[in-house]
């Protein structure tokens, strides 16, 4: 909801799901430009959702930005391995989430997707 309100304020169209299963279905149906994915969710967790999206031809290319409370290097590496292009550690400022999403999309457009991925594990925790 935090993200929805703030992303909408940046002029983006936002689809919101309350758990992993619902999110996966929504992504398959709507094919969004980007998925903001919470890792800790009831039922299907964020890592599993990312795996399923990557395994699916139709959703493989959708960029994923992980939102998580876990800042361990091991978790960051997992995010990188699962094809994430961003890794946001809670708590974060939702007001700037729109800028972050836009920035990621611009860089992907520029062909910097792999670089974004590598930045996930090289970034230090705040």
């Amino acid at each position: 909801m935090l993200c929805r309100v703030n992303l909408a304020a940046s002029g983006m169209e936002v689809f919101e799901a309350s758990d992993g299963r619902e999110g996966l279905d929504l992504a398959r149906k709507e094919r969004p430009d980007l998925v903001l994915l919470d890792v800790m969710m009831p039922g299907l967790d964020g890592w599993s959702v990312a795996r399923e999206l990557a395994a699916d031809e139709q959703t493989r290319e959708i960029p994923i930005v992980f939102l998580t409370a876990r800042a361990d290097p091991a978790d960051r590496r997992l995010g990188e391995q699962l094809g994430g292009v961003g890794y946001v550690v809670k708590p974060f400022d939702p007001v700037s989430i729109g800028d972050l999403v836009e920035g990621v999309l611009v860089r992907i457009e520029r062909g910097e997707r792999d670089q974004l991925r590598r930045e996930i594990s090289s970034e230090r925790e705040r």
Partner: protein
Amino acid sequence: MSATESSDAADRARRLQRVAELLAEAVTPQQVLDSILTEGVKAAEARAGSIGVLGEDGKTIEILAQRGYAESAMAGWESFALDAPTPMSEVIRTGDAIFIPDVTERNRLYPSLADRGQDGHALVVVPLAVEGRVFGAMSLSFDRDIQFEPDRREMKLTLARQAAQALARSRLYAAEQTLRERMTFLAEASELLSSTLDYNHTLGQLARLSVPGLADWCTIDIVSPEGEIERLAVAHQDPEKVRWAYELQDRYPPDPDAPTGVPHVLRTGEPEFFPTLPEELLDQAIGDDEELRRIIDELGLKSTICVPLTARGRTLGAVTLIAAETHPPYTAADLELAIELARRAAVAVDNARLYREAERGANAARALAYVADGVVLLDHDGVVRHWNPATEAITGVDEEQALGCPVGEVVPAWDALTSHVPLVPPGGAARPVTVPIVLNGRERWVAVSGVKFDDGTVYALQDVTEEHALEKTRSDFVATASHELRTPLAAVYGAVRTLRRDDVELSSDDRAAFLEMIESEAMRLAKIVDQILLAGQLDADAVDIELTECDPQEVAAAVIESAAMHLPETITLDLEADSEQPIRCDENKLRQVLVNLVDNAVKYSPEGGRVELRVRRANGSCLIEVADEGLGIPADERDRIFEKFYRLDPQQTQGVGGSGLGLYICRELVERMDGSLRVESEPGKGSRFTVELPLRR
């Protein structure tokens, strides 16, 4: 022969007979001397007589006794050389008697005596010999000039033979007596020395045993392990004087470089013997100290023996014997006795020390055998020289396999284990390094420290696997708790940031939802913090439990009612109560436990299902069960879920949050209410937690 002469001869024979009877009765040398010099001199019709014997050195003659001579006449003649030009020296040298009729003849024969005793007359000196060996002589002085006729001469020679035999016999007897006394003393001393290993005590007793038989004063000094001279014992018959001697010792501590006395004997390991204490020696020791001079004079020191206590080539101390107010000056025989005494005492001290060292060694071995830490001694080549049982337990390698072998062969992982361990010198601060290592097929964490000394390296090993696991749990908890705090914190922070945006118009529904989010997430934060604090209080045993009567149904109903207010739609919540019996518990704590169990049941039922709370009576207790149809708990984790900080799913990927403290807190609280908390579960089918509490008594 005239009648007078024959009557004289008979008279002489009677007198000789009388002397012989007296001498037969005399036992000690003094009695013999007394008899000769009274009755013997009288029998010989002499005015005075004296008896001299050859000294131990065979070079001097000592006058043992005299009678009839003026003190002034004897002055300077207490002892004189065997080769001196005197009648007695000559008689002892030659074994032939000398008969001098008058002073003129005496002065002619012995010109050096010309200036002495000019009023004298006839003089006879006869040898004292036994079995042809001359050991002394007897002189007889007469009050007139006499030409000694053969029968008169023979009478003097007979008297001398009688005297010689009696004196030799009594001296032998006295020597035997002394020897027996010494043997007895040595036997007593030996018995004393072997009676105990406490040589401090024993040597004290030995000193007391030596007084007064062997000495007026006996002191024993010992060289301490630090090389200092310690006075172990001072003995004197008068305890007051002993106290005074100790005071003196404090006031005048021994100079380790002193040229004589105990320090000298300790340095050289040789006995020191002063038959007569030389004046100049005392003067040297006293110096200008008038007080000390007064003390020394008062002591009346005559003669001293100081012998080293020597065993196995080392000087352990010294025994000093002092003859002062009563004891006669020491002789060579006394020195021999002192040496023998010191030898025995030294052996006893040495034995006691060896025993102590052996005992210390045995104690050290015992300590090493039972100490919980592994202790390994390696020589310079890395060969195992000591391998204690704790090391066996940690490494799984027996002492027998390890001793004498290079450690790398015994424990292949040894290098990995010790390569990062800093080796410190003896007395250095050995810091243990904790290293993970696979030993005997198990992963262990071992804290290793090492000390390098002259003969090798000693390592201490401590198996800290359990501590390490606990530490890991703790650090996991910190990570877990911080993660868990981040989520509600993110929601609160995010909601506030969003609400404060002035570039966005929020709908009133969104605004209300954000406020509600702030409220509920703040409460979640508070709850996590509460649990951390409560766990801390439980650890410190600082939680107050008030056991009162309460109705378990009432508590259960309240818990259900509150849980129902924010229940996911997929969950159904039921209460089944068939016991109205009151129980004895802390109502607030029971509510806390049940809220937690119901929360867990809901949380671990992500796919929904039925959560049931049931209150019933069984076996005189009240059972409160919380059952769900959720994820269940794998069998191998069922016991561990009650451990502090333990989480079924530490990665929290299932989205089930918590501090890892809930069940730990529940069990601790229930047990403090004299109850128990247990779980049954089947993975995939659900779990049942049972709180058992005592009924009211």
